Protein backbone atom coordinates (compact mmCIF):
# COMPACT_ATOMS: atom_id res chain seq x y z
CA UNK A 1 0.00 0.00 0.00
CA UNK A 2 2.69 2.41 1.00
CA UNK A 3 4.58 1.45 -2.11
CA UNK A 4 1.56 2.19 -4.33
CA UNK A 5 1.24 5.66 -2.81
CA UNK A 6 4.88 6.35 -3.46
CA UNK A 7 4.52 5.20 -7.06
CA UNK A 8 1.49 7.45 -7.53
CA UNK A 9 3.29 10.44 -6.04
CA UNK A 10 6.31 9.84 -8.24
CA UNK A 11 4.09 9.49 -11.31
CA UNK A 12 2.28 12.70 -10.40
CA UNK A 13 5.54 14.57 -10.03
CA UNK A 14 6.76 13.20 -13.36
CA UNK A 15 3.49 14.24 -15.09
CA UNK A 16 3.67 17.70 -13.55
CA UNK A 17 7.28 18.07 -14.61
CA UNK A 18 6.43 16.90 -18.14
CA UNK A 19 3.50 19.35 -18.26
CA UNK A 20 5.71 22.15 -17.05
CA UNK A 21 8.37 21.28 -19.59
CA UNK A 22 5.90 20.88 -22.48
CA UNK A 23 4.12 24.14 -21.70
CA UNK A 24 7.33 26.20 -21.75
CA UNK A 25 7.22 29.05 -24.27
CA UNK A 26 9.42 28.23 -27.27
CA UNK A 27 11.58 30.61 -29.28
CA UNK A 28 13.51 30.60 -32.54
CA UNK A 29 16.97 29.08 -32.39
CA UNK A 30 20.11 30.85 -33.60
CA UNK A 31 20.12 29.13 -36.99
CA UNK A 32 16.48 30.09 -37.61
CA UNK A 33 17.10 33.66 -36.51
CA UNK A 34 19.63 34.03 -39.32
CA UNK A 35 16.66 34.18 -41.74
CA UNK A 36 15.57 37.50 -40.24
CA UNK A 37 17.06 40.90 -40.99
CA UNK A 38 15.61 44.37 -40.44
CA UNK A 39 14.03 45.12 -43.78
CA UNK A 40 12.53 47.84 -45.91
CA UNK A 41 9.77 49.97 -44.36
CA UNK A 42 8.06 50.66 -47.70
CA UNK A 43 7.74 46.92 -48.36
CA UNK A 44 6.67 46.52 -44.77
CA UNK A 45 3.72 48.81 -45.28
CA UNK A 46 2.23 46.31 -47.74
CA UNK A 47 2.80 43.51 -45.24
CA UNK A 48 1.08 45.70 -42.64
CA UNK A 49 -2.08 45.99 -44.78
CA UNK A 50 -1.99 42.32 -45.78
CA UNK A 51 -1.76 41.39 -42.09
CA UNK A 52 -4.55 43.71 -40.99
CA UNK A 53 -2.61 44.75 -37.85
CA UNK A 54 -4.54 48.00 -37.66
CA UNK A 55 -7.95 46.32 -37.52
CA UNK A 56 -7.32 45.14 -33.96
CA UNK A 57 -4.51 47.38 -32.71
CA UNK A 58 -5.84 50.82 -33.76
CA UNK A 59 -8.76 52.51 -32.01
CA UNK A 60 -12.22 51.28 -32.98
CA UNK A 61 -13.60 53.18 -36.01
CA UNK A 62 -10.19 54.73 -36.73
CA UNK A 63 -10.04 56.32 -40.18
CA UNK A 64 -7.16 57.65 -42.28
CA UNK A 65 -3.91 58.30 -40.41
CA UNK A 66 -5.50 57.22 -37.13
CA UNK A 67 -5.23 53.66 -38.48
CA UNK A 68 -1.48 54.00 -37.97
CA UNK A 69 -1.83 54.77 -34.24
CA UNK A 70 -1.56 51.31 -32.74
CA UNK A 71 -2.37 51.99 -29.10
CA UNK A 72 -4.58 48.90 -28.80
CA UNK A 73 -7.67 48.64 -26.64
CA UNK A 74 -10.04 46.85 -29.02
CA UNK A 75 -12.08 44.23 -27.12
CA UNK A 76 -12.58 40.83 -28.74
CA UNK A 77 -15.50 39.19 -26.95
CA UNK A 78 -15.12 35.44 -27.46
CA UNK A 79 -16.42 32.27 -25.77
CA UNK A 80 -13.08 32.07 -23.90
CA UNK A 81 -13.43 35.56 -22.46
CA UNK A 82 -12.55 39.09 -23.51
CA UNK A 83 -9.20 39.66 -25.20
CA UNK A 84 -7.98 43.24 -25.27
CA UNK A 85 -5.60 44.13 -28.11
CA UNK A 86 -2.34 45.50 -26.67
CA UNK A 87 -0.39 48.63 -27.59
CA UNK A 88 2.01 47.75 -30.44
CA UNK A 89 2.94 51.33 -31.27
CA UNK A 90 6.58 52.46 -31.30
CA UNK A 91 6.30 53.75 -27.71
CA UNK A 92 9.27 52.29 -25.82
CA UNK A 93 7.41 52.43 -22.50
CA UNK A 94 3.97 51.12 -23.49
CA UNK A 95 4.35 49.68 -26.99
CA UNK A 96 6.98 47.59 -28.76
CA UNK A 97 9.46 50.39 -29.54
CA UNK A 98 12.13 48.76 -27.39
CA UNK A 99 11.81 45.35 -29.03
CA UNK A 100 14.67 43.83 -31.00
CA UNK A 101 13.95 42.12 -34.31
CA UNK A 102 14.50 38.84 -32.46
CA UNK A 103 11.78 39.76 -29.95
CA UNK A 104 9.43 40.63 -32.78
CA UNK A 105 10.19 37.44 -34.75
CA UNK A 106 9.58 35.28 -31.66
CA UNK A 107 6.24 36.98 -31.06
CA UNK A 108 5.14 36.60 -34.67
CA UNK A 109 6.23 33.02 -35.24
CA UNK A 110 6.22 31.39 -31.78
CA UNK A 111 3.65 33.50 -29.93
CA UNK A 112 6.25 34.14 -27.24
CA UNK A 113 6.84 37.53 -25.60
CA UNK A 114 10.26 39.12 -25.01
CA UNK A 115 9.97 38.23 -21.30
CA UNK A 116 9.23 34.60 -22.17
CA UNK A 117 5.47 34.34 -21.70
CA UNK A 118 2.99 32.69 -24.06
CA UNK A 119 0.67 34.94 -26.05
CA UNK A 120 -2.95 33.93 -26.42
CA UNK A 121 -3.75 32.89 -30.00
CA UNK A 122 -6.28 35.74 -30.32
CA UNK A 123 -3.06 37.23 -31.69
CA UNK A 124 -2.98 35.06 -34.83
CA UNK A 125 0.64 33.93 -34.68
CA UNK A 126 -0.63 30.51 -35.76
CA UNK A 127 -0.98 32.14 -39.21
CA UNK A 128 1.89 34.62 -38.94
CA UNK A 129 4.23 31.69 -38.27
CA UNK A 130 3.93 31.00 -42.04
CA UNK A 131 5.32 34.43 -42.95
CA UNK A 132 8.73 34.79 -44.55
CA UNK A 133 11.67 36.14 -42.58
CA UNK A 134 11.95 38.94 -45.12
CA UNK A 135 8.35 40.05 -44.61
CA UNK A 136 8.68 39.97 -40.82
CA UNK A 137 11.83 42.09 -41.13
CA UNK A 138 10.04 44.52 -43.44
CA UNK A 139 7.05 44.76 -41.12
CA UNK A 140 9.37 45.36 -38.17
CA UNK A 141 10.96 48.24 -40.07
CA UNK A 142 7.57 49.75 -40.97
CA UNK A 143 6.13 49.49 -37.45
CA UNK A 144 9.17 51.40 -36.19
CA UNK A 145 8.21 54.35 -38.42
CA UNK A 146 4.71 54.63 -36.91
CA UNK A 147 3.81 57.11 -34.16
CA UNK A 148 4.33 56.26 -30.50
CA UNK A 149 1.06 56.05 -28.58
CA UNK A 150 1.31 56.35 -24.80
CA UNK A 151 -0.70 54.22 -22.38
CA UNK A 152 -1.03 50.47 -22.00
CA UNK A 153 -4.25 48.72 -22.94
CA UNK A 154 -6.17 47.10 -20.06
CA UNK A 155 -5.52 43.38 -19.36
CA UNK A 156 -7.55 40.51 -20.86
CA UNK A 157 -10.65 39.43 -18.93
CA UNK A 158 -10.48 35.64 -18.83
CA UNK A 159 -11.89 33.06 -16.44
CA UNK A 160 -10.24 29.86 -15.19
CA UNK A 161 -8.63 27.88 -16.81
CA UNK A 162 -8.07 30.23 -19.74
CA UNK A 163 -6.31 32.75 -17.51
CA UNK A 164 -3.34 30.39 -17.11
CA UNK A 165 -0.95 31.59 -19.79
CA UNK A 166 1.42 28.73 -19.20
CA UNK A 167 -1.26 26.33 -20.48
CA UNK A 168 -1.09 27.96 -23.90
CA UNK A 169 2.31 26.31 -24.26
CA UNK A 170 0.56 22.94 -24.49
CA UNK A 171 -2.01 24.38 -26.87
CA UNK A 172 0.79 25.63 -29.12
CA UNK A 173 2.35 22.15 -29.20
CA UNK A 174 -0.94 20.87 -30.60
CA UNK A 175 -1.98 23.67 -32.92
CA UNK A 176 1.00 25.83 -33.88
CA UNK A 177 2.35 24.44 -37.15
CA UNK A 178 4.00 26.67 -39.75
CA UNK A 179 3.57 24.11 -42.56
CA UNK A 180 1.21 25.13 -45.41
CA UNK A 181 -2.37 23.96 -44.91
CA UNK A 182 -3.04 23.16 -48.57
CA UNK A 183 -0.07 21.40 -50.11
CA UNK A 184 -0.88 21.92 -53.79
CA UNK A 185 -3.59 23.41 -56.03
CA UNK A 186 -6.75 21.32 -56.22
CA UNK A 187 -6.85 19.18 -59.37
CA UNK A 188 -8.79 20.30 -62.44
CA UNK A 189 -8.46 23.50 -64.42
CA UNK A 190 -5.17 25.08 -65.30
CA UNK A 191 -3.62 26.84 -62.39
CA UNK A 192 -0.80 29.38 -62.52
CA UNK A 193 1.23 27.76 -59.75
CA UNK A 194 3.32 30.81 -58.91
CA UNK A 195 0.18 32.96 -58.58
CA UNK A 196 -1.59 30.27 -56.53
CA UNK A 197 1.39 29.97 -54.17
CA UNK A 198 1.47 33.72 -53.68
CA UNK A 199 -2.23 33.53 -52.84
CA UNK A 200 -1.63 30.68 -50.43
CA UNK A 201 1.08 32.69 -48.71
CA UNK A 202 -1.22 35.71 -48.31
CA UNK A 203 -4.29 33.75 -47.19
CA UNK A 204 -2.61 31.19 -44.88
CA UNK A 205 0.09 33.56 -43.61
CA UNK A 206 -0.22 37.31 -43.09
CA UNK A 207 -3.87 37.55 -44.21
CA UNK A 208 -4.82 35.01 -41.45
CA UNK A 209 -8.16 34.36 -43.23
CA UNK A 210 -8.42 30.89 -41.68
CA UNK A 211 -8.63 32.29 -38.16
CA UNK A 212 -12.26 33.32 -38.72
CA UNK A 213 -13.32 31.36 -41.83
CA UNK A 214 -12.31 27.93 -40.46
CA UNK A 215 -14.25 26.20 -37.67
CA UNK A 216 -12.51 25.44 -34.37
CA UNK A 217 -12.61 22.34 -32.19
CA UNK A 218 -13.45 22.39 -28.48
CA UNK A 219 -9.86 23.22 -27.60
CA UNK A 220 -9.95 26.24 -29.89
CA UNK A 221 -7.69 24.73 -32.56
CA UNK A 222 -8.60 25.06 -36.23
CA UNK A 223 -10.21 22.04 -37.90
CA UNK A 224 -7.88 21.98 -40.87
CA UNK A 225 -9.98 19.35 -42.68
CA UNK A 226 -12.65 22.05 -43.00
CA UNK A 227 -10.19 24.78 -43.98
CA UNK A 228 -12.02 28.03 -44.88
CA UNK A 229 -15.33 26.13 -44.76
CA UNK A 230 -17.12 28.77 -42.69
CA UNK A 231 -17.68 28.94 -38.94
CA UNK A 232 -19.78 30.53 -36.23
CA UNK A 233 -18.69 34.14 -35.79
CA UNK A 234 -16.02 34.27 -33.05
CA UNK A 235 -17.47 37.55 -31.82
CA UNK A 236 -21.11 38.59 -32.00
CA UNK A 237 -23.99 36.91 -33.81
CA UNK A 238 -24.11 35.13 -37.14
CA UNK A 239 -21.78 33.02 -39.24
CA UNK A 240 -18.57 33.64 -41.13
CA UNK A 241 -19.12 32.31 -44.67
CA UNK A 242 -17.62 29.29 -46.42
CA UNK A 243 -15.11 30.67 -48.95
CA UNK A 244 -14.17 27.37 -50.58
CA UNK A 245 -15.25 26.71 -54.19
CA UNK A 246 -18.36 24.88 -53.08
CA UNK A 247 -21.21 24.31 -55.52
CA UNK A 248 -24.26 26.49 -54.93
CA UNK A 249 -22.15 28.81 -52.78
CA UNK A 250 -18.86 30.62 -53.09
CA UNK A 251 -17.97 28.38 -56.03
CA UNK A 252 -20.21 30.51 -58.24
CA UNK A 253 -17.84 33.47 -57.81
CA UNK A 254 -15.27 33.78 -60.58
CA UNK A 255 -11.68 34.68 -59.74
CA UNK A 256 -12.43 38.15 -61.11
CA UNK A 257 -15.46 38.42 -58.78
CA UNK A 258 -13.28 37.61 -55.76
CA UNK A 259 -10.60 40.12 -56.75
CA UNK A 260 -13.25 42.79 -57.38
CA UNK A 261 -14.87 42.14 -54.01
CA UNK A 262 -11.53 42.60 -52.24
CA UNK A 263 -10.95 45.81 -54.19
CA UNK A 264 -14.43 47.37 -54.01
CA UNK A 265 -16.36 45.61 -51.26
CA UNK A 266 -19.10 44.44 -53.62
CA UNK A 267 -20.26 40.88 -54.20
CA UNK A 268 -21.24 39.74 -57.71
CA UNK A 269 -24.87 40.59 -56.78
CA UNK A 270 -23.75 44.03 -55.63
CA UNK A 271 -24.42 43.32 -52.04
CA UNK A 272 -21.82 45.13 -49.97
CA UNK A 273 -19.25 43.80 -47.57
CA UNK A 274 -20.30 43.93 -43.89
CA UNK A 275 -19.15 43.23 -40.35
CA UNK A 276 -15.45 42.86 -39.55
CA UNK A 277 -14.85 42.02 -43.21
CA UNK A 278 -15.24 45.75 -43.98
CA UNK A 279 -11.83 46.37 -42.39
CA UNK A 280 -10.29 43.34 -44.05
CA UNK A 281 -11.56 44.45 -47.46
CA UNK A 282 -10.31 48.00 -46.98
CA UNK A 283 -6.89 46.64 -46.05
CA UNK A 284 -6.85 44.30 -49.05
CA UNK A 285 -7.79 47.20 -51.33
CA UNK A 286 -4.41 48.74 -50.47
CA UNK A 287 -2.46 45.78 -51.90
CA UNK A 288 -1.30 45.57 -55.52
CA UNK A 289 -3.98 44.16 -57.86
CA UNK A 290 -1.75 41.14 -58.49
CA UNK A 291 -2.03 40.15 -54.82
CA UNK A 292 -5.84 40.24 -54.93
CA UNK A 293 -5.69 38.11 -58.09
CA UNK A 294 -3.37 35.69 -56.29
CA UNK A 295 -5.81 35.34 -53.38
CA UNK A 296 -8.60 34.70 -55.87
CA UNK A 297 -6.54 32.09 -57.74
CA UNK A 298 -5.84 30.27 -54.47
CA UNK A 299 -9.45 30.33 -53.27
CA UNK A 300 -10.60 28.91 -56.63
CA UNK A 301 -8.25 25.92 -56.34
CA UNK A 302 -8.58 24.56 -52.80
CA UNK A 303 -10.76 21.64 -51.64
CA UNK A 304 -14.47 22.54 -51.42
CA UNK A 305 -15.98 22.16 -47.95
CA UNK A 306 -19.58 21.02 -48.20
CA UNK A 307 -21.80 22.17 -45.35
CA UNK A 308 -23.31 19.46 -43.24
CA UNK A 309 -26.92 20.04 -42.20
CA UNK A 310 -27.20 22.64 -39.49
Amino acid at each position, binding site marked *: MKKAVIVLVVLGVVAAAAGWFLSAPTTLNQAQLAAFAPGDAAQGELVFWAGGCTSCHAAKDAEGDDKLKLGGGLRLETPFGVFVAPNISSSTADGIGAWSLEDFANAMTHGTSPDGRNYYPAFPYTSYARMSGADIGNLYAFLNTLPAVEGKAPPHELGFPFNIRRGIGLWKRLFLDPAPVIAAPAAGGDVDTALWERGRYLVEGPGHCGECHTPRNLAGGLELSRWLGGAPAPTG*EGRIPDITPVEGGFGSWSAADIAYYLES*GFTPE*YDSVGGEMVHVQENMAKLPASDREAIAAYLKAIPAVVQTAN
Partner: protein
Amino acid sequence: MRMIKSAVVLGLAAGIGLAGTIAQASDDPIATRQAIMSSVGAAAGLGGGMMKGEIAYSPAAGKAAIATMRAASLSFGDFFPAGSDQGKTGAAAAIWEDPDGFSAELAKFAAATAKASEAAGKDGPADVEALKAAMGPVFGSCKSCHETYRKKN
Protein backbone atom coordinates in the same frame (compact mmCIF):
# COMPACT_ATOMS: atom_id res chain seq x y z
CA MET B 1 -65.32 79.67 -49.71
CA ARG B 2 -67.17 76.47 -50.46
CA MET B 3 -64.53 75.64 -53.06
CA ILE B 4 -61.79 76.09 -50.50
CA LYS B 5 -63.62 73.86 -48.08
CA SER B 6 -63.97 71.14 -50.70
CA ALA B 7 -60.33 71.42 -51.53
CA VAL B 8 -59.44 71.01 -47.89
CA VAL B 9 -61.72 67.98 -47.60
CA LEU B 10 -60.28 66.51 -50.76
CA GLY B 11 -56.79 67.17 -49.54
CA LEU B 12 -57.53 65.52 -46.23
CA ALA B 13 -59.12 62.59 -47.97
CA ALA B 14 -56.09 62.26 -50.17
CA GLY B 15 -53.89 62.52 -47.12
CA ILE B 16 -55.83 59.81 -45.35
CA GLY B 17 -55.71 57.73 -48.51
CA LEU B 18 -51.95 58.15 -48.60
CA ALA B 19 -51.67 57.32 -44.94
CA GLY B 20 -53.76 54.25 -45.66
CA THR B 21 -51.33 53.18 -48.35
CA ILE B 22 -48.36 53.65 -46.06
CA ALA B 23 -50.04 51.69 -43.31
CA GLN B 24 -50.66 48.90 -45.76
CA ALA B 25 -47.04 48.86 -46.87
CA SER B 26 -45.77 48.75 -43.30
CA ASP B 27 -47.99 45.81 -42.43
CA ASP B 28 -44.94 43.86 -43.39
CA PRO B 29 -42.02 46.18 -42.70
CA ILE B 30 -39.48 43.43 -43.26
CA ALA B 31 -40.75 42.73 -46.80
CA THR B 32 -40.94 46.46 -47.52
CA ARG B 33 -37.43 47.29 -46.39
CA GLN B 34 -36.10 44.25 -48.22
CA ALA B 35 -37.79 45.42 -51.43
CA ILE B 36 -36.24 48.86 -50.99
CA MET B 37 -32.82 47.33 -50.35
CA SER B 38 -33.13 45.09 -53.40
CA SER B 39 -33.77 48.22 -55.49
CA VAL B 40 -30.56 49.62 -53.99
CA GLY B 41 -28.74 46.43 -54.98
CA ALA B 42 -30.11 46.67 -58.52
CA ALA B 43 -29.05 50.32 -58.77
CA ALA B 44 -25.59 49.42 -57.46
CA GLY B 45 -25.43 46.61 -60.02
CA LEU B 46 -26.29 49.00 -62.84
CA GLY B 47 -23.88 51.67 -61.63
CA GLY B 48 -21.11 49.22 -60.81
CA GLY B 49 -21.58 47.35 -64.10
CA MET B 50 -21.08 50.60 -65.99
CA MET B 51 -18.06 51.52 -63.87
CA LYS B 52 -16.50 48.15 -64.64
CA GLY B 53 -17.31 48.56 -68.33
CA GLU B 54 -19.55 45.50 -68.39
CA ILE B 55 -22.58 47.62 -69.26
CA ALA B 56 -22.30 50.40 -71.87
CA TYR B 57 -22.51 53.78 -70.21
CA SER B 58 -25.44 56.11 -70.72
CA PRO B 59 -26.14 59.25 -68.68
CA ALA B 60 -29.82 58.30 -68.38
CA ALA B 61 -28.89 54.95 -66.82
CA GLY B 62 -26.48 56.72 -64.47
CA LYS B 63 -29.24 59.06 -63.44
CA ALA B 64 -31.67 56.18 -62.87
CA ALA B 65 -29.18 54.44 -60.60
CA ILE B 66 -28.63 57.59 -58.56
CA ALA B 67 -32.34 58.45 -58.38
CA THR B 68 -33.11 54.96 -57.09
CA MET B 69 -30.48 55.35 -54.38
CA ARG B 70 -31.88 58.77 -53.52
CA ALA B 71 -35.45 57.52 -53.07
CA ALA B 72 -34.28 54.55 -51.03
CA SER B 73 -32.13 56.69 -48.74
CA LEU B 74 -35.16 58.81 -47.83
CA SER B 75 -37.56 55.95 -47.17
CA PHE B 76 -35.54 52.94 -45.99
CA GLY B 77 -35.19 54.02 -42.35
CA ASP B 78 -38.98 54.19 -41.85
CA PHE B 79 -39.38 50.43 -41.94
CA PHE B 80 -37.65 49.34 -38.75
CA PRO B 81 -40.46 49.51 -36.17
CA ALA B 82 -39.97 47.93 -32.75
CA GLY B 83 -40.47 44.18 -32.97
CA SER B 84 -39.38 43.88 -36.59
CA ASP B 85 -36.07 42.44 -35.47
CA GLN B 86 -37.84 39.08 -35.31
CA GLY B 87 -38.36 36.93 -38.40
CA LYS B 88 -36.40 36.37 -41.56
CA THR B 89 -34.29 39.49 -41.49
CA GLY B 90 -30.65 40.42 -41.89
CA ALA B 91 -31.16 43.48 -39.70
CA ALA B 92 -28.83 43.28 -36.69
CA ALA B 93 -30.03 43.86 -33.13
CA ALA B 94 -27.75 46.91 -33.05
CA ILE B 95 -30.41 48.85 -35.03
CA TRP B 96 -32.73 48.80 -32.02
CA GLU B 97 -30.00 48.87 -29.39
CA ASP B 98 -28.32 51.93 -30.85
CA PRO B 99 -30.99 53.84 -32.80
CA ASP B 100 -28.91 57.03 -32.83
CA GLY B 101 -25.99 55.25 -34.44
CA PHE B 102 -28.31 53.71 -37.04
CA SER B 103 -29.89 57.12 -37.74
CA ALA B 104 -26.44 58.59 -38.22
CA GLU B 105 -25.69 55.94 -40.87
CA LEU B 106 -29.01 56.63 -42.61
CA ALA B 107 -28.19 60.34 -42.58
CA LYS B 108 -24.83 59.57 -44.17
CA PHE B 109 -26.59 57.55 -46.89
CA ALA B 110 -29.09 60.40 -47.51
CA ALA B 111 -26.37 63.05 -47.59
CA ALA B 112 -24.37 61.04 -50.13
CA THR B 113 -27.37 60.55 -52.41
CA ALA B 114 -28.30 64.24 -52.14
CA LYS B 115 -24.86 65.19 -53.43
CA ALA B 116 -24.96 62.52 -56.12
CA SER B 117 -28.39 63.70 -57.32
CA GLU B 118 -27.13 67.24 -57.51
CA ALA B 119 -24.08 66.14 -59.47
CA ALA B 120 -26.23 64.04 -61.80
CA GLY B 121 -28.33 67.08 -62.70
CA LYS B 122 -31.10 66.99 -65.25
CA ASP B 123 -29.38 64.75 -67.79
CA GLY B 124 -27.37 62.41 -65.57
CA PRO B 125 -23.56 62.21 -65.14
CA ALA B 126 -21.92 63.01 -68.49
CA ASP B 127 -19.48 60.08 -68.46
CA VAL B 128 -18.28 57.12 -66.40
CA GLU B 129 -15.75 59.25 -64.55
CA ALA B 130 -18.53 61.61 -63.48
CA LEU B 131 -20.63 58.63 -62.39
CA LYS B 132 -17.74 57.24 -60.33
CA ALA B 133 -17.25 60.59 -58.62
CA ALA B 134 -20.96 60.90 -57.83
CA MET B 135 -21.55 57.28 -56.84
CA GLY B 136 -18.34 56.67 -54.85
CA PRO B 137 -19.52 58.19 -51.55
CA VAL B 138 -22.92 56.47 -51.91
CA PHE B 139 -21.16 53.10 -52.25
CA GLY B 140 -19.02 53.98 -49.24
CA SER B 141 -22.13 54.43 -47.12
CA CYS B 142 -23.25 50.84 -47.90
CA LYS B 143 -20.43 49.15 -46.02
CA SER B 144 -20.23 51.82 -43.37
CA CYS B 145 -23.76 50.83 -42.29
CA HIS B 146 -23.43 47.10 -43.02
CA GLU B 147 -20.37 46.91 -40.80
CA THR B 148 -22.47 47.26 -37.66
CA TYR B 149 -26.14 47.08 -38.51
CA ARG B 150 -26.42 43.96 -40.62
CA LYS B 151 -26.10 40.41 -39.34
CA LYS B 152 -23.24 38.30 -40.57
CA ASN B 153 -24.32 35.63 -43.04
